């Protein structure tokens, strides 16, 4: 969920370089290490060859476990992957090269077609929904979507149950993330990135530090300078927190109260925009003084005047973006091998070091400390216990409720 339009590879590279000169070295040596570790992937492939054949045989009758297409993984060593822009590590010299992905291709022999085609969860869903509902392959074997969308994909039986025999590293997922309400036990998804939705502001334009969410909605000196997210889950979670409710457990009435809170501030002209992925460009140009922000994004910009509130008084939203395999995928096993690969502690550490999100793989923090000590001591990458305790996930709501909340929220955003 990082920005595409304002992504400046040069600045990104400089920022990462500035963090630690040792990082570049260790990254290179790490890549050597990765190719040696190819054994792990090969081992997983061997396991799966003699393991459970397809999930359909073991499935309970009537359970929604997705609809399998013909899996061509073994004959056709390719994989079609849809992800969000600027959401993967990038080579210092060539922005089209992704070192972790290259290492995976070398080890597994699977050629990955990596496309940054997802910009908005709802846009993406309505884009692929017609194909999935007609039983047509969507053109991707693997995609990354946000946690709160998983129940929707599951309810419509649009995603396939994972064959865990292909994902021995599945056990590495941290317990909290493993038991997430949207997919308990992670039978259908593995985490790609984990982070917080919080607040960021421009110190040059905001003279008094911001410490709570409520200030963003009410402080007169921020009038017309605030941008919020157009995704319901993000903005409503913060509004629920600001009105004293818990986004992981709220009632319809509490939602309405929080929605009124947003509407009132919007009608008063407090907000400059409800934006999607492009919120960073206005923020960088100084057009917005305060913005809701995904935890890793602002750090990536490497601008000292742009600061993220590590933990607003009321708390903040925690979320995960997850890899899932849509129905009729043609290379399901290859997709599972890739999921397994990114659950290696060392790979997860390199990825999160680059994209500045929170590692959720056992052992990844230890790897990150070896790799890039500065990153490992940044609270938005390795959060403190207090941050973990005060961050809340978004409640898993029913499909009808989600649609209702989304459409009422979108009516308020008025765009």
């Amino acid at each position, binding site marked *: 969920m990082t920005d595409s339009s304002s992504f400046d590879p040069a600045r990104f590279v400089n920022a990462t370089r500035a963090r630690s000169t040792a990082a570049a070295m260790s990254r290179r040596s790490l890549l050597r290490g990765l190719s040696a570790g190819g054994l792990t992937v090969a081992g997983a492939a061997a396991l799966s060859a003699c393991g459970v054949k397809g999930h359909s045989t073991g499935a309970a009758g009537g359970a929604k476990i997705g609809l399998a297409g013909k899996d061509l993984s073994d004959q056709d060593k390719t994989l079609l992957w849809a992800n969000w822009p600027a959401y993967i590590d990038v080579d210092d010299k060539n922005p089209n090269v992704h070192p972790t992905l290259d290492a995976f291709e070398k080890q597994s022999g699977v050629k990955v077609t990596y496309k940054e085609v997802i910009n908005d969860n709802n846009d993406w869903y*309505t884009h692929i*929904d017609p194909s999935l509902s007609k039983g047509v392959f969507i053109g991707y074997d693997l995609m990354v979507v946000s946690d709160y969308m998983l129940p929707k994909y599951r309810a419509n039986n649009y995603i396939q149950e994972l064959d865990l025999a292909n994902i021995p590293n599945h056990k590495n997922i941290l317990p909290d993330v493993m038991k997430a309400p949207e997919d308990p036990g992670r039978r259908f998804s593995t985490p790609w990135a984990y982070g917080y939705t919080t607040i960021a502001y421009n110190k040059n334009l905001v003279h008094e530090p911001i410490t709570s969410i409520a200030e963003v909605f009410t402080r007169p000196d921020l009038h017309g300078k605030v941008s919020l997210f157009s995704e319901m889950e993000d903005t409503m979670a913060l509004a629920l927190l600001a009105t004293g409710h818990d986004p992981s457990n709220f009632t319809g009435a509490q939602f309405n109260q929080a929605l009124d809170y947003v509407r009132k501030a919007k*009608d008063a*002209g407090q907000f400059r925009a*409800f934006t999607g992925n492009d919120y960073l460009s206005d923020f960088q140009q100084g*057009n917005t003084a305060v913005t809701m922000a995904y935890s890793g994004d602002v750090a990536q910009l490497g601008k000292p005047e742009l600061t993220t509130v590590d933990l607003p008084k009321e708390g903040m939203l925690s979320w995960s973006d997850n890899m899932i395999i849509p129905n009729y995928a043609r290379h399901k096993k290859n997709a599972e091998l890739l999921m397994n690969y990114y659950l290696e502690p060392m790979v997860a550490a390199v990825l999160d070091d680059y994209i500045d999100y929170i590692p959720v793989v056992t052992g990844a923090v230890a790897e990150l400390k070896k790799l890039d000590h500065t990153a490992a001591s940044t609270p938005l990458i390795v959060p403190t216990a207090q941050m973990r305790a005060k961050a809340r996930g978004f409640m898993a709501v029913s499909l009808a409720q989600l*649609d209702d909340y*989304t459409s009422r929220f979108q009516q308020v955003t*008025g*765009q």
Partner: protein
Amino acid sequence: MSVSLQAPPAKSPVPQPPPAARRAGLLTPWILLLPGLLWLVVFFLVPILTSVGASVQTGNADQGYRLTWDWGNYGHGLSDYLPQYGHSLLYSVLCTVFCLLLGYPVAYCIAFRGGRFKSLLMALVVVPSFTSFLIRTIAWKTILSDNGPIVSVLNDLHVLNATTAMGWTVGNHVLASPAAVVFGMVYNFLPFMILPLYTSLEKIDPRLHEAGSDLYCDTFATWRRVTLPLSMPGVVGGTLLTFIPAVGDYINAQLLGNPNTGVVGQKIEDLFLRQTDGYPVGSAISVVLMAGTLILVLLYIRKAGTEDLI
């Protein structure tokens, strides 16, 4: 302007074609019309009927839509999105007026004072459109950014205090305001105003201007009594070409506006792309937009009375 003094052609005995040839002769116009008619059916009639059909359905994308003749979608659409309709209408009318005020002098100068540079000047009007209009609009975001030179000059001159007091801008910036939306629209649609104006002004015989001054008209009176009436087809054509796309435009409001400048196009986009149960109401509000635009345009043409235009 010449009056035809020719007598009607005398009737000459034309030999009657054989019956088969006559039938073919009757069919010829239809055969010639066929490609155009097919085009209209496939790209105009079918989409309109689909749209109207979708506007009276019930359901969502996951369970499918059923035709239930639910006219309530129109009621919901109109009551929920009335402010957006108001903004669309206001901004597009303002855009048309500003385009006319800016475009007419430009077209006039090119047509009558352009000399041998006419083609070059017209090319200059059109050339910016060779870049995507999305990119040009995004470029304005940078040019007008809060910390950019233009906004600081406007602030130093206290212009923005005045416009903010009038409700045209918000705070001490230009972007994310109604003024920015109208500005963006004027910028993007100006060529559509200038081109038809130029075409009709260019056809006016310059000797009519001489005749005007011979008859003791000053320049302004000549313009008002001779040039303007003769350029009316251009004015009507230009205003239509500007107003019709402007009323449905939402890119300018999206990129240059704020949450309180929403236009109906944004809502249609939102309902179609981001809401899984948005098709019926989305279709209803777009049908209303089309019908409303059609009625306004018909009234305007009736009033303007330019039969030679249509």
